[in-house]
């Protein structure tokens, strides 16, 4: 009971001290906003692919190929903006030159015999030219263009099959009133995509839980080590150490004040994600808070270790910089762990942040309940207990040398 009182006493002091420091307060609020805006806007979303410049070289010039060109030119995105900004070129080489000059991000070449072959019932060909200097964009362009080609092929096929079967033929380019029989011939198997929730996943929903966990945990880690180092530098730590309160209260009190700050930042990230980036929280907010706290708990031991060792704030920042970097990339904040090489995957599963992020993602994106995240809960608890069990005695030992 005394320990809890002492612990709270230290935490309260740290918080009051913190709120008095205007610069620290400002950076505290700006950091998550800054981070969210950065991450939220630099990563591609559905809205970011619009008016992509592509080249078109149509050597055919017949009405069928013109329909095809129109289909590409008029391709609309869900928000009714054009997907492509089309530039006309003479041939494949001209398109390639255009890509080299960075005028366009890809192109499509329609050869002279395109319509002729189609009419003759042969297989016609088009060529998609890709920009290899930009894999992400070219992948996207390829995908969209091949979809258009595919769609166009299907229309052609419908017309032909309709004719063969003698069902009512419709004009080229329209796809109304195609009998189910025809569709069944052209596409014998149709697939449906069903998610756990309605709607399409967006990349920001994938990274928002990760960003939140990362901001909170690194802030706590950094804050704790810096706060102890600052008191060492200023000499005030001696004032705490010569009092009869336990070392445990001192370090846990400091950790508590950091946890409270971390939680406030976490909630800020969450609100920004809701209102600025349209992320919906599908699970329980209480579970989110629980896992943020568990994440903090799993990191406190490490923070205590660093603060025991580091005598200056700068040293603490350096040690943490080294730890933070691999954590950022390996814990699955930005890239799914399953996409990593096997060795890296093993390392990823040794980092507590990985489990916090995994659980938060399940809760926030998939609406998972406690039953689906009990493994993460257990791992985080064990991480916390083990690291605290090691670090508290080390802190006690080191702090009085």
């Amino acid at each position, binding site marked *: 009971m*005394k320990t809890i009182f002492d612990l709270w*006493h230290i935490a309260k*002091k740290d918080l009051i001290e913190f709120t008095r420091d205007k610069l620290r307060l400002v950076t505290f609020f700006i950091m998550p906003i800054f981070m969210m805006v950065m991450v939220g806007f630099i990563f591609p979303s559905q809205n970011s692919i619009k008016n992509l410049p592509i080249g078109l070289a149509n050597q055919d010039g017949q009405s069928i190929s013109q329909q095809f060109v129109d289909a590409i030119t008029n391709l609309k995105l869900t928000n009714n903006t054009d997907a492509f900004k089309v530039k006309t070129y003479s041939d494949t080489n001209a398109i390639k030159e255009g890509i080299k000059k960075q005028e366009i991000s890809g192109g499509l070449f329609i050869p002279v015999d395109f319509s002729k072959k189609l009419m003759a019932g042969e297989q016609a060909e088009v060529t998609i030219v890709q920009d290899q200097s930009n894999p992400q964009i070219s992948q996207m362009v390829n995908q969209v263009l091949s979809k258009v080609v595919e769609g166009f092929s299907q229309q052609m096929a419908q017309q032909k099959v309709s004719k063969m079967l003698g069902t009512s033929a419709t004009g080229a380019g329209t796809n109304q009133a195609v009998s189910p029989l025809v569709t069944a011939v052209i596409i014998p198997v149709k697939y449906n995509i069903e998610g756990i929730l309605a709607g399409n996943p967006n990349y920001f929903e994938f990274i928002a839980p990760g960003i939140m966990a990362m901001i909170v945990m690194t802030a706590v880690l950094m804050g704790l080590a810096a706060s102890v180092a600052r008191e060492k530098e*200023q*000499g005030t730590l*001696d*004032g705490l150490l*010569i009092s009869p309160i336990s070392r445990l209260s001192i370090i846990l009190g400091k950790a508590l004040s950091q946890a409270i700050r971390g939680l406030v930042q976490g909630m800020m990230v969450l609100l920004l994600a809701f209102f600025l980036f349209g992320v919906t929280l599908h699970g329980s907010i209480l579970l989110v808070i629980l896992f943020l706290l568990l994440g903090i708990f799993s990191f406190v031991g490490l923070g205590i270790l660093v603060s025991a060792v580091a005598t200056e704030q700068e040293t603490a920042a350096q040690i943490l910089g080294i730890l933070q970097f691999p954590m950022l990339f390996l814990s699955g904040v930005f890239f799914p762990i399953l996409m990593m090489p096997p060795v890296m995957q093993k390392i990823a599963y040794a980092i507590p942040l990985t489990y916090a992020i995994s659980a938060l993602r399940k809760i926030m994106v998939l609406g998972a309940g406690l039953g689906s995240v009990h493994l993460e809960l257990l791992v985080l608890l064990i991480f916390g207990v083990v690291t605290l069990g090691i670090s508290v005695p080390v802190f006690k030992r080191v702090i*009085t040398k």
Partner: protein
Amino acid sequence: MINQSSQNFNKDKTESIVLVRGLIKKFGHFAAVDNISFDLRKGEIFGFLGPNGAGKSTTIRMLTTLLRPTAGYATLAGFDVVKQQDEVRKHIGLVAEKIILYNNLTATENLQFFGQLYHLPKDEIKKRSQRWLEKLHMTEWLSSRVITLSTGMKQRINIVRALLTKPDVLFLDEPTLGLDPQTTHLIRSFIRELNDQGVTVLLTTHDMLEAEELSDRVAIIDHGKIAALDTVENLKKIVKDNPHPNLEEVFLSITGKEIRDVTHSRVSSGRGLGPHGMIGQTKRIR
């Protein structure tokens, strides 16, 4: 051991409040405090003098439970500084080299915070500090943040903080360093007054006048060893070529001698000083 030595002092009718026996602190191979033994008698002001790096602060840190001795032992008010740390902590006050106050808290908030670390009720903290704050002319500045105060003001609040526990032993590590003559004078008379009320004081200072004015007894420590320990009067007898030496001359004659001895005995440790060592030392002290 403890009983034996306290009995010895009881015979002299002087009660010891701090016992230091064979205390050693090594940092790696370097012995910062090298087997020192002394007593603090209840109610005295004990001047703890020595050149920079002699081991004064290290000794204070061990006696105030902030550092663990490598060997030897020390007791304070009968409590072992290693085994009964919490008991020791309740009986001491510390004014260290660095001021122990939070810059972003006000003077009152600082005093309340540190007082509550000892589980003192708020009213009691206020009551206790009020008296000392008045004596140190600091009552007007209580709601100012410490960062806005001058060094002298900070040090006065810092002293009040150290007194909140009503300590039996007050450790003052260079309490008047860098202060103006007025504040220095005020603090010195305050120390004297505290001592009159029964507080035992261990005082380190580089100001020989201060040491001479305040100390009942003086220990001179050099290279981690006690070079001399006696009343100022007796120590003055060491200087042979001057019938009325001041404490500074005593200090120089003792620490100077010690350095020459050290060059012979400590060559292997790599810390031995050459013949110019003494000159360097002298300059630093002045």
